[in-house]
Protein backbone atom coordinates (compact mmCIF):
# COMPACT_ATOMS: atom_id res chain seq x y z
CA UNK A 1 0.00 0.00 0.00
CA UNK A 2 0.97 3.61 -0.51
CA UNK A 3 0.66 6.09 2.31
CA UNK A 4 1.11 9.78 2.93
CA UNK A 5 2.29 10.47 6.48
CA UNK A 6 2.05 13.84 8.18
CA UNK A 7 4.39 13.59 11.16
CA UNK A 8 5.09 16.07 13.95
CA UNK A 9 8.78 17.02 13.77
CA UNK A 10 10.32 18.94 16.64
CA UNK A 11 14.10 18.73 17.04
CA UNK A 12 14.13 19.75 20.72
CA UNK A 13 11.82 21.02 23.47
CA UNK A 14 12.90 24.61 22.89
CA UNK A 15 12.23 24.67 19.14
CA UNK A 16 8.77 25.06 17.68
CA UNK A 17 7.62 21.95 15.87
CA UNK A 18 5.62 21.44 12.69
CA UNK A 19 4.01 18.71 10.63
CA UNK A 20 6.20 17.22 7.87
CA UNK A 21 4.94 15.18 4.91
CA UNK A 22 6.40 11.83 3.89
CA UNK A 23 5.38 9.42 1.16
CA UNK A 24 5.80 5.74 1.73
CA UNK A 25 5.35 3.01 -0.89
CA UNK A 26 5.30 -0.77 -0.59
CA UNK A 27 3.86 -0.82 2.91
CA UNK A 28 2.67 -4.32 3.79
CA UNK A 29 -0.66 -4.51 5.53
CA UNK A 30 0.84 -7.12 7.87
CA UNK A 31 3.33 -4.58 9.24
CA UNK A 32 2.68 -3.15 12.65
CA UNK A 33 2.39 0.61 12.82
CA UNK A 34 5.83 0.87 14.44
CA UNK A 35 7.38 -1.36 11.75
CA UNK A 36 5.96 1.02 9.17
CA UNK A 37 7.72 3.87 11.00
CA UNK A 38 10.91 1.77 11.11
CA UNK A 39 10.74 1.44 7.33
CA UNK A 40 10.26 5.18 6.99
CA UNK A 41 13.20 5.83 9.32
CA UNK A 42 15.49 3.51 7.32
CA UNK A 43 14.54 5.47 4.24
CA UNK A 44 15.22 8.77 6.05
CA UNK A 45 18.64 7.54 7.25
CA UNK A 46 19.56 6.47 3.70
CA UNK A 47 18.55 9.93 2.52
CA UNK A 48 20.80 11.47 5.17
CA UNK A 49 17.90 12.92 7.13
CA UNK A 50 17.22 12.80 10.86
CA UNK A 51 15.06 9.75 11.64
CA UNK A 52 11.78 10.29 13.47
CA UNK A 53 12.12 9.77 17.22
CA UNK A 54 9.36 7.69 18.82
CA UNK A 55 9.10 5.68 22.04
CA UNK A 56 8.82 1.90 21.88
CA UNK A 57 10.05 -1.07 23.82
CA UNK A 58 8.40 -4.47 24.10
CA UNK A 59 6.20 -4.19 20.99
CA UNK A 60 3.91 -6.73 22.64
CA UNK A 61 1.36 -4.32 24.05
CA UNK A 62 2.41 -4.74 27.66
CA UNK A 63 5.11 -2.18 28.45
CA UNK A 64 3.24 1.05 27.78
CA UNK A 65 6.19 2.77 26.07
CA UNK A 66 4.68 3.38 22.67
CA UNK A 67 1.89 5.81 22.19
CA UNK A 68 1.05 8.05 19.27
CA UNK A 69 -1.88 10.21 18.31
CA UNK A 70 -2.84 8.62 15.00
CA UNK A 71 -5.39 10.50 12.91
CA UNK A 72 -6.64 12.25 16.03
CA UNK A 73 -7.19 9.09 18.09
CA UNK A 74 -4.82 7.91 20.80
CA UNK A 75 -3.19 4.65 19.62
CA UNK A 76 -5.13 4.91 16.35
CA UNK A 77 -8.38 3.38 15.12
CA UNK A 78 -8.20 0.13 17.13
CA UNK A 79 -8.50 0.06 20.91
CA UNK A 80 -5.00 -1.27 21.49
CA UNK A 81 -1.44 -0.04 21.84
CA UNK A 82 0.28 1.54 18.85
CA UNK A 83 2.65 -1.45 18.54
CA UNK A 84 -0.30 -3.82 18.27
CA UNK A 85 -1.95 -1.73 15.57
CA UNK A 86 -1.42 -3.14 12.09
CA UNK A 87 -1.43 -1.43 8.74
CA UNK A 88 -4.43 -3.53 7.68
CA UNK A 89 -6.46 -1.05 9.72
CA UNK A 90 -5.67 1.53 7.02
CA UNK A 91 -6.36 1.64 3.30
CA UNK A 92 -4.16 2.19 0.29
CA UNK A 93 -3.69 5.90 -0.40
CA UNK A 94 -4.56 7.03 3.14
CA UNK A 95 -3.10 10.13 4.70
CA UNK A 96 -2.16 9.47 8.31
CA UNK A 97 -1.53 12.26 10.82
CA UNK A 98 0.91 11.28 13.57
CA UNK A 99 1.35 13.52 16.62
CA UNK A 100 2.82 13.13 20.09
CA UNK A 101 0.64 13.05 23.22
CA UNK A 102 -0.31 16.67 23.93
CA UNK A 103 -0.36 17.59 27.59
CA UNK A 104 1.08 20.16 29.93
CA UNK A 105 2.26 17.21 32.00
CA UNK A 106 3.95 15.52 29.02
CA UNK A 107 6.44 17.97 27.49
CA UNK A 108 7.77 16.94 24.07
CA UNK A 109 11.36 15.72 24.21
CA UNK A 110 11.80 15.23 20.47
CA UNK A 111 9.42 14.59 17.56
CA UNK A 112 6.93 12.03 18.90
CA UNK A 113 8.68 11.36 22.21
CA UNK A 114 7.17 12.94 25.30
CA UNK A 115 8.48 13.00 28.85
CA UNK A 116 6.07 10.93 30.92
CA UNK A 117 8.00 11.10 34.18
CA UNK A 118 5.02 13.02 35.60
CA UNK A 119 3.35 9.58 35.88
CA UNK A 120 6.32 8.29 37.88
CA UNK A 121 5.98 11.22 40.25
CA UNK A 122 2.27 10.50 40.71
CA UNK A 123 3.18 6.89 41.52
CA UNK A 124 5.87 7.92 43.98
CA UNK A 125 3.36 10.22 45.68
CA UNK A 126 1.26 7.24 46.78
CA UNK A 127 1.08 4.40 44.27
CA UNK A 128 2.67 1.86 46.56
CA UNK A 129 2.12 -0.12 49.74
CA UNK A 130 4.50 -0.29 52.68
CA UNK A 131 5.43 -3.88 53.40
CA UNK A 132 8.10 -5.34 55.66
CA UNK A 133 10.98 -6.96 53.87
CA UNK A 134 11.90 -10.57 54.47
CA UNK A 135 10.39 -13.81 53.34
CA UNK A 136 7.39 -13.45 51.12
CA UNK A 137 4.20 -14.09 53.12
CA UNK A 138 2.12 -17.11 52.25
CA UNK A 139 -0.14 -16.33 49.33
CA UNK A 140 -3.25 -17.25 51.30
CA UNK A 141 -2.18 -15.49 54.53
CA UNK A 142 -4.41 -12.52 53.71
CA UNK A 143 -7.70 -13.60 52.15
CA UNK A 144 -8.94 -11.36 49.32
CA UNK A 145 -12.56 -11.66 48.16
CA UNK A 146 -12.69 -12.90 44.58
CA UNK A 147 -14.76 -9.94 43.38
CA UNK A 148 -12.25 -7.47 44.82
CA UNK A 149 -9.31 -9.42 43.47
CA UNK A 150 -10.83 -9.35 39.97
CA UNK A 151 -11.64 -5.63 40.08
CA UNK A 152 -8.19 -4.82 41.47
CA UNK A 153 -6.60 -6.88 38.75
CA UNK A 154 -8.64 -5.14 36.05
CA UNK A 155 -7.33 -1.81 37.35
CA UNK A 156 -3.80 -3.17 37.67
CA UNK A 157 -3.69 -3.92 33.94
CA UNK A 158 -3.00 -0.20 33.38
CA UNK A 159 0.36 0.03 31.61
CA UNK A 160 0.76 3.79 32.10
CA UNK A 161 0.94 4.56 28.39
CA UNK A 162 -0.72 7.97 28.80
CA UNK A 163 -3.40 7.52 26.14
CA UNK A 164 -6.02 8.63 28.70
CA UNK A 165 -4.28 11.98 29.12
CA UNK A 166 -3.77 12.33 25.38
CA UNK A 167 -7.43 11.66 24.59
CA UNK A 168 -8.97 13.68 27.42
CA UNK A 169 -10.43 17.03 26.29
CA UNK A 170 -9.25 18.37 29.68
CA UNK A 171 -5.83 16.72 29.50
CA UNK A 172 -6.64 14.95 32.75
CA UNK A 173 -4.71 11.98 34.09
CA UNK A 174 -7.65 10.78 36.16
CA UNK A 175 -7.99 7.35 34.55
CA UNK A 176 -4.34 6.58 35.21
CA UNK A 177 -4.42 7.79 38.82
CA UNK A 178 -7.81 6.16 39.39
CA UNK A 179 -6.52 2.82 38.11
CA UNK A 180 -3.68 2.92 40.63
CA UNK A 181 -5.92 4.07 43.50
CA UNK A 182 -8.45 1.35 42.67
CA UNK A 183 -5.85 -1.35 42.24
CA UNK A 184 -4.28 -0.74 45.67
CA UNK A 185 -7.39 0.47 47.47
CA UNK A 186 -9.34 -2.73 46.81
CA UNK A 187 -6.74 -5.02 48.34
CA UNK A 188 -6.25 -5.54 52.09
CA UNK A 189 -2.57 -4.72 51.71
CA UNK A 190 -3.49 -1.26 50.43
CA UNK A 191 -5.72 -0.26 53.35
CA UNK A 192 -3.26 1.40 55.78
CA UNK A 193 -2.34 4.09 53.24
CA UNK A 194 -5.68 4.25 51.47
CA UNK A 195 -6.67 7.75 52.64
CA UNK A 196 -3.32 9.45 52.33
CA UNK A 197 -2.67 7.73 49.00
CA UNK A 198 -5.61 9.28 47.19
CA UNK A 199 -5.05 12.73 48.69
CA UNK A 200 -1.37 12.76 47.75
CA UNK A 201 -1.76 11.26 44.28
CA UNK A 202 -4.45 13.76 43.31
CA UNK A 203 -2.37 16.65 44.68
CA UNK A 204 0.58 15.46 42.60
CA UNK A 205 -1.60 15.02 39.51
CA UNK A 206 -2.89 18.58 39.80
CA UNK A 207 0.63 19.88 40.34
CA UNK A 208 1.84 18.19 37.14
CA UNK A 209 -0.35 20.38 34.93
CA UNK A 210 -2.93 17.74 34.21
CA UNK A 211 -6.53 18.88 33.97
CA UNK A 212 -9.54 17.92 36.05
CA UNK A 213 -11.95 15.14 35.15
CA UNK A 214 -15.36 16.00 33.69
CA UNK A 215 -16.43 12.37 33.22
CA UNK A 216 -16.61 12.56 29.44
CA UNK A 217 -15.21 9.06 28.96
CA UNK A 218 -12.76 9.60 26.07
CA UNK A 219 -10.01 8.09 28.24
CA UNK A 220 -11.70 4.76 28.81
CA UNK A 221 -12.71 4.53 25.14
CA UNK A 222 -9.09 4.65 23.94
CA UNK A 223 -7.47 2.80 26.85
CA UNK A 224 -5.60 -0.22 25.41
CA UNK A 225 -6.48 -2.11 28.56
CA UNK A 226 -10.08 -0.94 28.72
CA UNK A 227 -9.78 0.54 32.23
CA UNK A 228 -13.34 1.41 33.22
CA UNK A 229 -14.82 4.75 34.27
CA UNK A 230 -15.78 2.90 37.45
CA UNK A 231 -12.21 3.41 38.70
CA UNK A 232 -12.70 7.18 38.54
CA UNK A 233 -15.87 6.91 40.60
CA UNK A 234 -13.92 4.80 43.08
CA UNK A 235 -11.14 7.39 43.30
CA UNK A 236 -13.68 10.15 43.92
CA UNK A 237 -15.35 8.02 46.58
CA UNK A 238 -12.00 7.39 48.26
CA UNK A 239 -11.02 11.06 48.15
CA UNK A 240 -14.30 12.24 49.66
CA UNK A 241 -13.96 9.53 52.30
CA UNK A 242 -10.43 10.66 53.06
CA UNK A 243 -11.54 14.30 53.39
CA UNK A 244 -14.37 13.29 55.73
CA UNK A 245 -11.92 11.24 57.79
CA UNK A 246 -9.66 14.29 57.93
CA UNK A 247 -6.80 12.40 56.36
CA UNK A 248 -3.51 14.21 56.59
CA UNK A 249 -1.11 13.26 53.82
CA UNK A 250 1.47 10.97 55.43
CA UNK A 251 4.97 12.16 54.80
Amino acid at each position, binding site marked *: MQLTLRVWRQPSPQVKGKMANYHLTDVSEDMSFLEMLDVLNEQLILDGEDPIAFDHDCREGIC*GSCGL*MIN*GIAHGPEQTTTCQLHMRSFSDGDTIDIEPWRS*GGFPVVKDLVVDRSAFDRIISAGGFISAPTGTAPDAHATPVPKVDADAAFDAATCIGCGACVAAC*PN*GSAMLFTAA*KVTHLGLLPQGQPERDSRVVRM*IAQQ*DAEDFGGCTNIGECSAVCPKGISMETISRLNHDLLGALRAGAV*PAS
Partner: protein
Amino acid sequence: MLVATVTTQQAGQSAGANPGPKRDPKTGRFGSSVFKKAVMAVTGIIMILFLIAHMIGNLHVFQGAASFNDYSEWLRQVGEPALPPRTLLTVIEIVLLVSVLAHGWAAVSLWRQAKRARPIAYQTKKRVQQSYASRTMRWGGVIVGLFIIYHLLDLTFGVANIDGPDATPYDRLIASMSNPVVVFFYVLSLLALGFHLRHGVWSATQTLGQSNKRRERAVNVFATAFAVVLIGGYLVIPFVVLTGIVA
Protein backbone atom coordinates in the same frame (compact mmCIF):
# COMPACT_ATOMS: atom_id res chain seq x y z
CA MET B 1 3.96 -3.46 44.02
CA LEU B 2 5.59 -0.35 42.62
CA VAL B 3 4.52 -0.04 39.03
CA ALA B 4 6.72 2.56 37.45
CA THR B 5 7.97 2.60 33.93
CA VAL B 6 10.72 5.10 33.38
CA THR B 7 10.07 6.22 29.89
CA THR B 8 12.67 8.86 29.29
CA GLN B 9 16.30 9.48 29.89
CA GLN B 10 15.87 12.84 31.54
CA ALA B 11 15.72 12.80 35.29
CA GLY B 12 13.28 15.05 37.05
CA GLN B 13 11.37 17.70 35.23
CA SER B 14 12.47 18.31 31.70
CA ALA B 15 13.49 21.84 31.02
CA GLY B 16 12.38 24.17 28.32
CA ALA B 17 9.25 22.64 26.86
CA ASN B 18 7.16 23.55 29.83
CA PRO B 19 7.57 27.24 30.52
CA GLY B 20 6.65 28.67 33.87
CA PRO B 21 7.29 27.22 37.29
CA LYS B 22 5.64 23.97 38.25
CA ARG B 23 3.23 24.38 41.08
CA ASP B 24 4.18 22.57 44.24
CA PRO B 25 1.78 19.77 45.08
CA LYS B 26 -0.93 21.31 47.19
CA THR B 27 -0.85 19.71 50.58
CA GLY B 28 -4.11 21.48 51.34
CA ARG B 29 -6.90 18.98 51.05
CA PHE B 30 -9.53 21.30 49.65
CA GLY B 31 -7.69 22.71 46.66
CA SER B 32 -7.70 19.55 44.57
CA SER B 33 -9.52 19.23 41.28
CA VAL B 34 -11.59 16.40 42.71
CA PHE B 35 -12.73 18.55 45.64
CA LYS B 36 -13.75 21.30 43.20
CA LYS B 37 -15.71 18.73 41.22
CA ALA B 38 -17.42 17.64 44.43
CA VAL B 39 -18.38 21.26 45.10
CA MET B 40 -19.87 21.40 41.60
CA ALA B 41 -21.74 18.14 42.12
CA VAL B 42 -23.28 19.16 45.46
CA THR B 43 -24.21 22.68 44.36
CA GLY B 44 -25.55 21.20 41.12
CA ILE B 45 -27.81 18.86 43.06
CA ILE B 46 -29.09 21.78 45.18
CA MET B 47 -29.92 23.72 42.03
CA ILE B 48 -31.58 20.67 40.49
CA LEU B 49 -33.83 20.35 43.55
CA PHE B 50 -34.84 23.98 43.05
CA LEU B 51 -35.45 23.38 39.35
CA ILE B 52 -37.81 20.50 40.16
CA ALA B 53 -39.80 22.63 42.63
CA HIS B 54 -39.82 25.58 40.22
CA MET B 55 -41.08 23.43 37.34
CA ILE B 56 -43.89 21.94 39.41
CA GLY B 57 -44.80 25.39 40.75
CA ASN B 58 -45.02 26.72 37.19
CA LEU B 59 -47.72 24.19 36.37
CA HIS B 60 -50.15 26.29 38.46
CA VAL B 61 -50.57 28.23 35.23
CA PHE B 62 -52.98 25.49 34.09
CA GLN B 63 -55.25 26.29 37.04
CA GLY B 64 -55.66 29.84 35.85
CA ALA B 65 -54.45 33.31 36.75
CA ALA B 66 -55.86 33.32 40.29
CA SER B 67 -54.22 30.05 41.29
CA PHE B 68 -50.87 31.09 39.77
CA ASN B 69 -50.87 34.46 41.56
CA ASP B 70 -52.04 32.87 44.81
CA TYR B 71 -49.17 30.39 44.62
CA SER B 72 -46.76 33.28 44.13
CA GLU B 73 -48.27 35.07 47.10
CA TRP B 74 -48.26 31.91 49.21
CA LEU B 75 -44.49 31.54 48.66
CA ARG B 76 -44.09 34.95 50.28
CA GLN B 77 -46.31 34.10 53.25
CA VAL B 78 -45.16 30.59 54.19
CA GLY B 79 -44.94 30.27 57.96
CA GLU B 80 -46.62 33.57 58.72
CA PRO B 81 -47.20 34.81 61.33
CA ALA B 82 -44.67 32.60 63.14
CA LEU B 83 -42.03 33.60 60.62
CA PRO B 84 -41.51 37.03 59.07
CA PRO B 85 -42.69 37.51 55.46
CA ARG B 86 -40.50 36.07 52.70
CA THR B 87 -38.62 33.77 55.09
CA LEU B 88 -38.76 30.75 52.79
CA LEU B 89 -37.94 32.78 49.70
CA THR B 90 -35.02 34.52 51.37
CA VAL B 91 -33.55 31.22 52.55
CA ILE B 92 -33.93 29.74 49.06
CA GLU B 93 -32.41 32.83 47.48
CA ILE B 94 -29.35 32.75 49.74
CA VAL B 95 -28.80 29.01 49.25
CA LEU B 96 -29.15 29.37 45.48
CA LEU B 97 -26.89 32.40 45.27
CA VAL B 98 -24.17 30.61 47.23
CA SER B 99 -24.65 27.52 45.04
CA VAL B 100 -24.43 29.46 41.79
CA LEU B 101 -21.31 31.31 42.91
CA ALA B 102 -19.57 28.14 44.19
CA HIS B 103 -20.57 26.21 41.04
CA GLY B 104 -19.22 29.00 38.84
CA TRP B 105 -16.05 29.45 40.84
CA ALA B 106 -15.20 25.74 40.64
CA ALA B 107 -16.08 25.64 36.93
CA VAL B 108 -13.87 28.60 36.05
CA SER B 109 -11.02 27.23 38.13
CA LEU B 110 -11.22 23.81 36.45
CA TRP B 111 -11.65 25.40 33.03
CA ARG B 112 -8.39 27.29 33.52
CA GLN B 113 -6.68 24.12 34.73
CA ALA B 114 -7.87 22.30 31.61
CA LYS B 115 -6.48 25.11 29.42
CA ARG B 116 -3.09 24.76 31.09
CA ALA B 117 -3.24 21.00 30.67
CA ARG B 118 -3.16 21.23 26.87
CA PRO B 119 -0.94 24.18 25.95
CA ILE B 120 -0.51 22.99 22.34
CA ALA B 121 -3.62 21.84 20.49
CA TYR B 122 -3.75 18.77 18.29
CA GLN B 123 -3.62 19.29 14.53
CA THR B 124 -6.15 16.48 14.23
CA LYS B 125 -8.40 15.33 17.05
CA LYS B 126 -11.31 12.96 16.64
CA ARG B 127 -14.14 12.33 19.07
CA VAL B 128 -14.48 8.77 20.19
CA GLN B 129 -16.83 8.85 23.12
CA GLN B 130 -17.92 12.38 24.02
CA SER B 131 -21.52 13.42 23.60
CA TYR B 132 -22.90 16.79 22.55
CA ALA B 133 -23.96 17.28 26.16
CA SER B 134 -20.53 16.60 27.67
CA ARG B 135 -18.78 18.71 25.04
CA THR B 136 -20.94 21.77 25.66
CA MET B 137 -20.93 21.73 29.47
CA ARG B 138 -18.82 24.86 29.89
CA TRP B 139 -20.27 27.19 27.28
CA GLY B 140 -23.69 25.70 27.92
CA GLY B 141 -23.25 26.66 31.56
CA VAL B 142 -22.34 30.21 30.55
CA ILE B 143 -25.47 30.43 28.38
CA VAL B 144 -27.63 29.14 31.23
CA GLY B 145 -26.02 31.68 33.58
CA LEU B 146 -26.78 34.58 31.24
CA PHE B 147 -30.31 33.27 30.80
CA ILE B 148 -30.85 33.21 34.57
CA ILE B 149 -29.87 36.89 34.78
CA TYR B 150 -32.32 37.81 32.02
CA HIS B 151 -34.97 35.53 33.51
CA LEU B 152 -34.73 37.28 36.89
CA LEU B 153 -34.91 40.72 35.27
CA ASP B 154 -37.91 39.60 33.22
CA LEU B 155 -40.12 37.63 35.58
CA THR B 156 -38.82 38.22 39.11
CA PHE B 157 -37.99 41.94 39.11
CA GLY B 158 -40.08 42.69 36.04
CA VAL B 159 -37.77 45.45 34.82
CA ALA B 160 -37.16 43.67 31.51
CA ASN B 161 -40.81 42.74 31.19
CA ILE B 162 -43.25 44.40 28.79
CA ASP B 163 -45.93 44.68 31.47
CA GLY B 164 -43.38 45.99 33.98
CA PRO B 165 -42.72 45.33 37.67
CA ASP B 166 -46.22 46.35 38.80
CA ALA B 167 -48.10 43.68 36.84
CA THR B 168 -49.16 40.42 38.51
CA PRO B 169 -46.82 37.41 38.11
CA TYR B 170 -49.37 35.79 35.79
CA ASP B 171 -49.60 38.85 33.51
CA ARG B 172 -45.83 39.10 33.32
CA LEU B 173 -45.62 35.43 32.40
CA ILE B 174 -48.22 35.79 29.63
CA ALA B 175 -46.58 38.98 28.34
CA SER B 176 -43.21 37.27 27.92
CA MET B 177 -44.45 33.90 26.75
CA SER B 178 -46.62 35.38 24.01
CA ASN B 179 -43.65 37.23 22.52
CA PRO B 180 -42.10 34.93 19.86
CA VAL B 181 -38.62 36.47 20.20
CA VAL B 182 -38.56 35.96 23.97
CA VAL B 183 -39.93 32.44 23.58
CA PHE B 184 -37.28 31.62 20.95
CA PHE B 185 -34.42 32.45 23.32
CA TYR B 186 -36.28 30.88 26.23
CA VAL B 187 -36.52 27.59 24.37
CA LEU B 188 -32.85 27.74 23.30
CA SER B 189 -31.72 28.42 26.87
CA LEU B 190 -33.88 25.65 28.27
CA LEU B 191 -32.47 23.21 25.72
CA ALA B 192 -28.96 24.26 26.78
CA LEU B 193 -30.01 23.63 30.38
CA GLY B 194 -31.36 20.22 29.38
CA PHE B 195 -28.04 19.17 27.85
CA HIS B 196 -26.22 20.61 30.87
CA LEU B 197 -28.36 18.49 33.18
CA ARG B 198 -28.09 15.38 31.05
CA HIS B 199 -24.32 15.28 31.46
CA GLY B 200 -24.40 16.95 34.88
CA VAL B 201 -26.51 14.25 36.53
CA TRP B 202 -24.20 11.50 35.24
CA SER B 203 -21.08 13.49 36.08
CA ALA B 204 -22.26 14.31 39.61
CA THR B 205 -22.97 10.63 40.23
CA GLN B 206 -19.42 9.80 39.16
CA THR B 207 -17.91 12.69 41.11
CA LEU B 208 -19.63 11.68 44.32
CA GLY B 209 -18.34 8.16 43.81
CA GLN B 210 -21.74 6.58 43.41
CA SER B 211 -21.32 5.06 39.96
CA ASN B 212 -19.94 1.69 38.97
CA LYS B 213 -19.95 -0.62 35.95
CA ARG B 214 -23.32 -2.10 36.84
CA ARG B 215 -25.02 1.25 37.47
CA GLU B 216 -23.38 3.16 34.61
CA ARG B 217 -26.09 2.43 32.07
CA ALA B 218 -28.94 3.06 34.48
CA VAL B 219 -27.43 6.36 35.62
CA ASN B 220 -27.09 7.53 32.02
CA VAL B 221 -30.63 6.49 31.11
CA PHE B 222 -31.94 8.25 34.22
CA ALA B 223 -29.95 11.39 33.41
CA THR B 224 -31.45 11.57 29.92
CA ALA B 225 -34.99 10.81 31.11
CA PHE B 226 -34.73 13.33 33.92
CA ALA B 227 -33.47 16.09 31.62
CA VAL B 228 -36.23 15.39 29.08
CA VAL B 229 -39.03 15.36 31.67
CA LEU B 230 -37.81 18.45 33.52
CA ILE B 231 -37.21 20.55 30.42
CA GLY B 232 -40.46 19.26 28.92
CA GLY B 233 -42.26 20.49 32.03
CA TYR B 234 -40.81 23.95 31.52
CA LEU B 235 -41.34 24.12 27.76
CA VAL B 236 -44.98 23.14 27.94
CA ILE B 237 -45.78 26.65 29.23
CA PRO B 238 -44.56 28.77 26.29
CA PHE B 239 -46.18 26.13 24.07
CA VAL B 240 -49.63 26.48 25.61
CA VAL B 241 -49.37 30.27 25.81
CA LEU B 242 -48.24 30.66 22.20
CA THR B 243 -50.89 28.28 20.90
CA GLY B 244 -53.55 30.08 22.94
CA ILE B 245 -54.53 27.14 25.14
CA VAL B 246 -53.77 29.37 28.14
CA ALA B 247 -54.41 33.07 27.75
